[in-house]
């Protein structure tokens, strides 16, 4: 019978402390009854004990049968859990890229290899923490019931996506977040860059184009907010799609307008003196062409978006 006690002890070790004694006591009573029954059928006590315990299996398996711990994430919340993880990871990656760019600009050195490796390192470093936070949040909030059921409590048929094939591209959204964040950083370099490093910058916004700093800030902020909102969505809705088209249209018009009023960006006077004249001419004239190219790309994108729009109805 020593074997039975050892088995019970092993089972108890896999159980919470407050349940172990009670379950162990009951398990022992059941095992002894089973052993007695086999013994009555001519098996020796040792044989009977072996037979019964082998039938129960590994102590952990027995413990799990008597006390099943709640899953960290319930099956019903799993799709939502995956979605939160993927979107948070995407956001984390965007953050890593922006932070790296920020750091590089601050140190006045853009190294392509560092630009590739540093965001990746930063992303992996934060990923485990993200995984832990999301999982624990689901565990603690999910203790009181399904999170999905609570989130979708106000769902109705009219909230079905207009066209389920119109899925929002996460990579496009992430690109928008990175682009807009970077644009905002560039526009407001003098607010976060040290004076010394700022003075060494080659380019500056032309004094006559200073208003573009504010116009582009407003455009970038609205675009950034749209992109962040899209991260929470799976499908395009008419409203979000129209807002996305307006976003592209605004940037396209702004690009044309800037091209017509160029130069928007000028070389700093202190550095101008050291540069050949043809370089300055090239920078002055090429700005318009560059901005017109950007506008053209945005108008082409807009054209295809408008063309697809009727399918969303």
């Amino acid at each position, binding site marked *: 019978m020593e074997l039975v006690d050892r088995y019970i002890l092993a089972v108890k070790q896999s159980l919470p402390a407050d349940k172990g004694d009670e379950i162990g*006591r*009951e398990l022992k009573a*059941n095992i002894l*009854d089973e052993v007695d029954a086999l013994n009555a059928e001519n098996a020796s006590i040792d044989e009977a004990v072996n037979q019964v315990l082998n039938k129960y299996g590994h102590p952990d398996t027995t413990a799990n*049968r*008597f006390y099943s711990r709640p899953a960290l994430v319930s099956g019903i919340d799993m799709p939502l859990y995956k979605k939160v993880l993927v979107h948070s990871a995407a956001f984390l990656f965007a953050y890593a890229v922006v932070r790296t760019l920020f750091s590089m600009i601050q140190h006045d050195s853009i190294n392509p290899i560092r630009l590739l490796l540093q965001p990746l390192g930063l992303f992996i470093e934060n990923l485990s923490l993200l995984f832990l936070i999301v999982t624990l949040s689901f565990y603690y909030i999910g203790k009181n019931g399904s999170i999905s059921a609570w989130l979708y409590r106000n769902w109705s048929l009219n909230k079905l996506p207009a066209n389920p094939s119109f899925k929002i591209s996460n990579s496009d959204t992430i690109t928008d977040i990175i682009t807009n964040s970077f644009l905002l950083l560039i526009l407001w370099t003098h607010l976060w860059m040290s004076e010394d490093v700022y003075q060494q910058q080659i380019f500056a916004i032309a004094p006559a184009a200073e208003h573009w700093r504010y116009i582009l800030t407003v455009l970038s902020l609205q675009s950034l907010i749209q992109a962040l909102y899209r991260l929470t969505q799976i499908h395009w809705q008419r409203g979000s799609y129209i807002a996305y088209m307006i976003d592209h249209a605004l940037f396209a018009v702004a690009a044309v307008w800037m091209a017509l009023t160029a130069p928007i960006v000028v070389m700093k006077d202190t550095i101008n003196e050291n540069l050949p004249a043809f370089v300055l001419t090239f920078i002055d004239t090429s700005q318009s062409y560059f901005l017109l190219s950007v506008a053209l790309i945005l108008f082409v994108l807009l054209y295809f978006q408008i063309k697809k729009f009727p399918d969303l109805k």
Partner: protein
Amino acid sequence: MSETRINKLRLELRRGVLILSVLASSKEPQYGYSLRKHLSNAGIEIDEGTLYPLIRRLAEQELLSSEWKNTDGRERRYYVLSDKGRVVLEQLTEDWQHLNKSISALLEKS
């Protein structure tokens, strides 16, 4: 279909019915092993690793009440249907009979 898959389907089919069988067998006080024998005699084989945890869960849900007793020089935990369990058993019995009738009709048609 493989035998393993069929066994899984059998288990799924039996899962709900086992609760009804245990509740129905607990009108009189039963301890773990006696309940298993009782079910076995009625033609319902259930292994101890499934039955004993199931009884505990039903007790936690207050469908069975329990008390420790010393019988034949050994302590055993006896379970018996509680008042709440009695009401649930009546409802489940009614559901089972209705379901049984419907499924029998379906099986006859096919």
